[in-house]
Structure formats: C-alpha cells, structure tokens
C-alpha cells in the first residue's frame, strides 16, 4: 500500500517553545550560519515558529504558528525548476534532489510559504562539532536549495526495515524529528492514505484549515485553529 505522508499542527497545543526547531537542526545537519549571515537574513530553519501579535497593549495577544514545508500536492516550487531538482516524489512529497540543484532559487521565489532555504556559502562546523552530523543526511554544499523533507531519511529507513521484515509500516513508525520532540504534542504525523490514522482523523477536524489554502497549493499540512476561551455563562 502506497503512503501519502501528512502532518497536522494543532495551534491550540503549540506553545511556541521551538523544540521542533532544534530537533530539526540536530536531525538534518542544518548549518549554523553565524551572526553576520543571520543579519543578512540567511539563517536556516526548516521549521520556524511564526509569532504574530494581535492588538495593542494592554489588549494584546500572540499567535504562534509553526511553519514548515507544506508538502503541497499542487506545489508552485515544482514546475518552475529547470532540472527537476524540486519534484513530486512517488509518495507525494515535494522532493529536493540536492545533487540536481543548480541554485536558480526560482523555487524559493515561487514558494508562497517562504520555507525554502539556500546555502549562500559552504557550511562549516568548528571541529569537533562536525561529529554531531547525522551520517544519514547529506551535508549540502554552497549553491544548493534545501527545505523540510518530512525527515525522509527516517521514512526511508522505516520503510526499508519494514520491507526487510516483510510487513507494512506501523502507525507512527516513521516520525519526523520535530514531531518526536514536540512537548505539548502539537505536531502529528502519519499516512493520509490510511483513513484510520490519527493524522487522517485530525485532518478532518472542524478546526482544520490549510495555510494560504486560497492559493490552491493543496498542502499536506493541516492547521487546527486555536479555539477561543468561552467561559461557562455565570
């Protein structure tokens, strides 16, 4: 049975703690660019927690919204790539083939979520910090576009193990690093082809909505909107 990986982000659970951000850095060999580059807006965070203020003091509130690659079914980043470096995989992910990337950065312009990141320089790790690098993920060189992959290396190894044990994947077997780390369980990951999976059930929630859904990108990430506090009438 083929898989269609999807994610649900429960904004009512998300606390904006950014555990997911560091988990992603640790899992995916995301380079630390340093202050000068960060000042130039070149910091790389495949998943980020967007913070939006609402209103003004004292009636002020904040909205936290984790944004990662939405793995669109109808992705604007895919058709524009002249070399198929950005393409639709068999499992419906927006693949990014590093070795095929020319660095036109066209995909990044086309992406309405601005979740694609570019290696403006060769990344560098002060030794022995390089020992933390995950050998199961490429280290991207200069001029290569990168983005959230739903931790495809975890998905692949899970699939390989399942295959070697001649069985199907179990629910929740492949889990992206961000989902695994999330303290309030705001992130849920699973197979959208399995109608019984948790992610499928939550996707059908009445609170469910797509980020910039009006653009028709058909994201595979669903955001469950934060509920408003309604007190029992006193």
């Amino acid at each position: 049975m083929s898989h269609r990986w999807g994610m649900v982000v429960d904004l009512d659970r998300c606390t904006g703690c950014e555990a997911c951000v560091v988990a992603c850095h640790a899992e995916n060999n995301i380079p630390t660019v340093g202050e000068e580059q960060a000042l130039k807006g070149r910091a790389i965070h495949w998943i980020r927690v967007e913070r939006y203020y609402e209103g003004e003091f004292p009636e002020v509130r904040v909205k936290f919204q984790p944004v990662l690659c939405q793995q669109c079914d109808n992705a604007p980043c895919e058709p524009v790539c002249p070399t198929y470096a950005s393409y639709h995989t068999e499992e419906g992910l927006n693949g990014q083939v590093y070795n095929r990337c020319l660095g036109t950065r066209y995909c990044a312009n086309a992406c309405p979520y601005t979740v694609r990141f570019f290696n403006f320089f060769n990344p560098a790790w002060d030794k022995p910090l390089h020992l933390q690098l995950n050998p199961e993920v490429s280290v991207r060189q200069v001029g290569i576009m990168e983005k959230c992959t739903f931790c495809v290396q975890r998905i692949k190894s899970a699939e390989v193990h399942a295959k070697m044990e001649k069985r199907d994947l179990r629910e929740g077997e492949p889990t992206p690093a961000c989902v695994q780390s999330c303290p309030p369980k705001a992130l849920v990951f699973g197979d959208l082809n399995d109608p019984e999976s948790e992610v499928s059930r939550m996707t059908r929630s009445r609170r469910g909505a797509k980020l910039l859904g009006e653009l028709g990108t058909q994201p595979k990430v669903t955001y469950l909107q934060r509920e408003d506090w309604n007190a029992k009438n006193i």
Partner: protein
Amino acid sequence: MRSIITDLSLVVMASVAVSSFFLNRASLAGSFRKRIAGTPQVFTPAHPTVLDSAREFLGWRDNAVQPLAFTHKRHVENQITCTACHEGVQQSAIAGIPNIKVCMRCHALFAKDRPEIKKLTAIFNSGLDLPWQRVYGFSPSAHVKFNHAPHIHAGVDCSTCHGDVTVMTVAVRAVNLNMGFCLRCHRAKQVSTDCITCHF
C-alpha cells in the same frame, strides 16, 4: 572626447575603489565565518583547492593504496564469507571496513608466520589500527545515501557492484558505480527509480 575619457576613468577608479573597500568587508564577512576561514580546524564540504573541485567535477579518483597486501582471494578460499568481516552489510546502510581487532580474531592464531601477518601483528601491538583506504564510495556532491542491507536482502550479489573479489588480492575498483549502473539494475528489477530513493 576628453569628457568621455574622464568619465570612463572615473567609473573605473570608482569601481576599483569600491571593490577594494568591499573586498575587505566581504573577506571578513561573518565573525563566525571569519574565525574559521582557511583553518584546518573546520569541517566543511568545500573543496580544499580549486584543483580538487575540478578533479571531482571530472570524476578523477586515485586508486586506493592499502597498508597491507590483503588478499581477498585467499580469505574467500578459506570459506570466510564477506559478512564475517563486513559486518554491517546485512543490517545497515554501511558494510564497514573491518578494524584490526577483527583481523586479530583469527590471526592471533592463524598464519602468524607469514610476513604480512607479522606486519599486522606488529601494528596491532603498537596499539594502532590499519589505515585502510576506501575503494568505492560516492563523492559527497553526489548526495547518494546508498543502503547495503536492502540490496543484500533483495539477493543482489556483492560481486554485482564490487566485481569478483574472490579472484582479487588487494581489492580494486572493478565496477564504475555511476548513476547509469544503478538505474539499469533498478529498471530491470522494477524497483523504484524515484530520485528520493537514493538522493536525500
């Protein structure tokens, strides 16, 4: 006419001046980057020299030079399977180049009189490991994440990709593992040729 010349010379001076000024800035760009620039204490996928990058671009590789004249042939003749030394191959992505302890498992007892084994024992006693060099392996810029285990489980014979090691003394690069080679097999066996299967 004169005006034109002066204009142009102005442009040149300006651009050179601007260049020189910003060059200093740029070369210092990033307190973080600056400190690590050029020092060997940094790990980076950048090629050390332009020549190296050219060599990789053109796919030129030196042949591996091994510390010992290890003969695969002889070991295979003695019914030693590949997995006996390349332990990872059945369960993980990496087959693994055995370290000296693996050698000494047997050679603490067997064939101790042979000159190469004497060398081996000497190195072992000095507390050092053998600096084996890789014979195969993909260039980092290929971004290939090859996984041995599933291929072994699919019954792909080692020799398919590594040549007939049983007749080799020191292993040599017998097969050119380019993408075409992989694809031919994947297509023939009708397994996924999706890019993300190997490139991530």
